[in-house]
């Protein structure tokens, strides 16, 4: 609660710093009529002061709120009477402290309240208050101090714009590096388990084996008939399901995008685009039920009526429904970039006697290609990462097959089932999930590198 107030106060300090910085810069050149003699616009001097007043203090605030509790508890533990803490393990101490906290905050306590406990609770409340007050003081002092220094710098020759832009740029660089850090985090969080997995199962078997059998012993007292970790069927399954999904999503999505941006009346476009986007937000459970209970039986009956043997779970059913789900990735993103192709290019083509469709196919699509590929890549990515639909409609059997009417499973599905079922963290089985994750990561990386090169090759720069 208090933190919110502090945040508001900080905001007020920033606003004040903005105005003061601005004022100082303006008066430095002798009033508003002389602002052109400033290096930058007055607002930049204000922003500079405000950013300096705000950012370090915010950082401190974030750090402090993260650490305050631990600090207070440490202090509290140090001050607890000997007899209370004697012989307690760290975890139990934590429980004791929890009791004290509960008592202090007026929540229910588990045991009778002894006077010592009462005293400790009071002490805790004191410490907590102290911590909060020192936080206020520290944060505000930092804000005022930094703000004052920044304010002092707001002299006419000071390159405020450059400074502010450097700060903004730094923030953007930090933002960009989040992607890298995420990757790093992902790799690190699967790497060690993967290595452990590969120490149990030979990579050769994993990468080239064609039999994936989850029926391995998960526990010492459970023995499976076959334990095979050949990941090939999983990758072919992933490939097939994603390919089917793309076969649905890319034509429908792209054609929708084209129709909406080039042919459709405005009104339709304004409605249809957001409506299609809803497809991306329907929970996958819903798609899963739809695929398993509506599409799969339909395909099965259709197949049987023409004499085909269709498994009740088929890659086709899962792929089709997944394709529907990712339509908006293709349609909306493509629509935006198609819409952004300058009208002059359309005019140039029409003036030569091209029909709309020729213009679209030969001029607009090539010009919008990088963006379209971006959308398609996102869609593929989503297809690869999707689980629920596949589990519900394509089953879990790792068949190495090229028949879309067979049941297949995908890498992601296996990862999820292995990680959410009954697990044991030192059996090859659960570890396989990590190895699969890492491998998938590597495979998609290679595919993305290829995609980047292809896009580079066909990129057309207009204007």
């Amino acid at each position, binding site marked *: 609660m208090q933190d919110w107030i502090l945040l508001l106060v900080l905001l007020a300090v920033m606003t004040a710093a903005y105005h003061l910085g601005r004022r100082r810069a303006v008066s430095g050149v002798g009033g508003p009529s002389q602002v052109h003699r400033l290096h930058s616009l007055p607002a930049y001097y204000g922003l500079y002061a405000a950013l300096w007043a705000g950012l370090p203090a915010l950082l401190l605030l974030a750090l402090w709120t993260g650490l305050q509790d631990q600090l207070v508890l440490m202090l509290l533990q140090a001050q607890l009477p000997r007899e209370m803490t004697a012989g307690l393990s760290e975890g139990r101490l934590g429980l004791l402290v929890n009791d004290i906290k509960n008592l202090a905050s007026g929540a229910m306590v588990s045991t009778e309240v002894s006077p010592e406990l009462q005293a400790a609770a009071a002490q805790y409340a004191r410490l907590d208050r102290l911590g909060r007050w020192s936080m206020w003081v520290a944060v505000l002092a930092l804000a005022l101090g930094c703000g004052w220094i920044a304010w002092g710098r707001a002299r006419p020759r000071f390159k405020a714009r450059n400074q502010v832009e450097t700060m903004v740029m730094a923030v953007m660089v930090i933002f960009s590096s989040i992607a890298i850090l995420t990757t790093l985090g992902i790799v690190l969080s699967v790497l060690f388990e993967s290595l452990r997995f590969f120490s149990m199962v030979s990579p050769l078997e994993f990468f080239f084996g064609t039999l994936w059998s989850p029926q391995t012993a998960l526990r010492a007292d459970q023995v499976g008939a076959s334990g095979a970790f050949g990941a090939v069927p999983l990758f072919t399954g992933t490939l097939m399901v994603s390919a089917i999904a793309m076969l649905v999503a890319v034509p429908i999505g792209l054609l929708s995008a084209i129709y909406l941006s080039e042919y459709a009346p405005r009104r339709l476009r304004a409605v249809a685009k957001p409506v299609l986007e809803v497809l991306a937000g329907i929970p996958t459970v819903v798609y899963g039920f739809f695929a398993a209970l509506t599409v799969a039986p339909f395909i099965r009956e259709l197949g049987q009526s023409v004499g085909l043997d269709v498994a009740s779970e088929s890659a086709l059913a899962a792929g089709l429904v997944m394709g529907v789900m990712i339509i908006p990735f293709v349609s909306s993103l493509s629509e935006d970039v198609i819409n952004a192709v300058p*009208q002059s290019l359309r005019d*140039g083509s029409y003036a*030569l006697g091209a029909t709309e469709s020729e213009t679209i196919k030969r001029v607009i699509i090539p010009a919008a290609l990088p963006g379209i590929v971006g959308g398609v890549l996102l869609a593929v990515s989503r297809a690869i990462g999707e689980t629920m639909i596949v589990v519900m409609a394509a089953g879990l059997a790792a068949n190495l097959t090229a028949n879309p009417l067979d049941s297949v499973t995908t890498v992601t599905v296996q990862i999820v089932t292995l990680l959410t079922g009954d697990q044991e963290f030192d059996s090859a089985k659960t570890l396989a999930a990590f190895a699969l994750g890492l491998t998938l990561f590597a495979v998609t990386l290679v595919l993305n590198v290829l995609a980047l090169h292809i896009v580079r090759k066909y990129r057309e720069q207009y204007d």
Partner: protein
Amino acid sequence: MITTVEEIQRSTSTAMRSGELARVRESRETVGDYSVPDARMRCRDIEVWYGDKRAIHGVNLDLGRNEVLSMIGPSGCGKSTFLRCLNRMNDTIDGCRVSGSIQLDGEEIYDRALDPVPLRARVGMVFQKPNPFPKSIYENVAYGPRIHGLTTSKAELDALVETSLRKAGLWDEVKDRLEAPGTGLSGGQQQRLCIARTIAVSPEVILMDEPCSALDPIATAIIEELIDELRANYSIAIVTHSMQQAARVSQRTAYFHLGDLVEVGETNQIFTNPQHRLTEDYITGRFG
């Protein structure tokens, strides 16, 4: 030394003369004979609106066979707008409405049943701002012939591309980088590329919106020679700001002013003996 539009307008109220001549000189109707016998294109009562703004006020004008018609007039007077009506290019502008009748060889082009595709294949256009496709130079020129299926073999297409680029005077500059993107050309080169692109489909009527604005005299000469040559078979309407150019290439000239077609007539006559005061003011304000 200079006559601004403002000054011209101010002078309207002061420099009045009397009688028939004065009436012609201040006419609200088009001065001169806007019709030609056996016209290729015949425009009647054209009005163009951009939203609420009327850009063209009831213009009548014919484009004859084998003639070059030049359109002149101060910037913003509606030349491009009018030109874009002739192949229904205005259809692509949101909020632009065209009324009146435009006939190509006796056929109403704003007829709902009419397909603009063959129309635009017959009435080609070079835009005021060069707009090459973001494709290779070769593809830019080959685009039209390809979609219309004008050639049957790669060799034929190559030859057509070469002739078109040659005619536009661009061949020598680009012959060894036909695969380079058309957008990486200089301004004047882009303009010539767009001309080459248009003539590659041999339209019957060619509309050119300031085709030489970014060209040096030599390139201009090449284009003018091209226009002269094309006239043998085609009809050409050209917007230009250079009265010298209008005089050099066109047989008839139309003078537009603030959305009105003020005067139209033989090029010679317009430049030597303009009837309307506005035309005269414009012509005599000429430099060079």
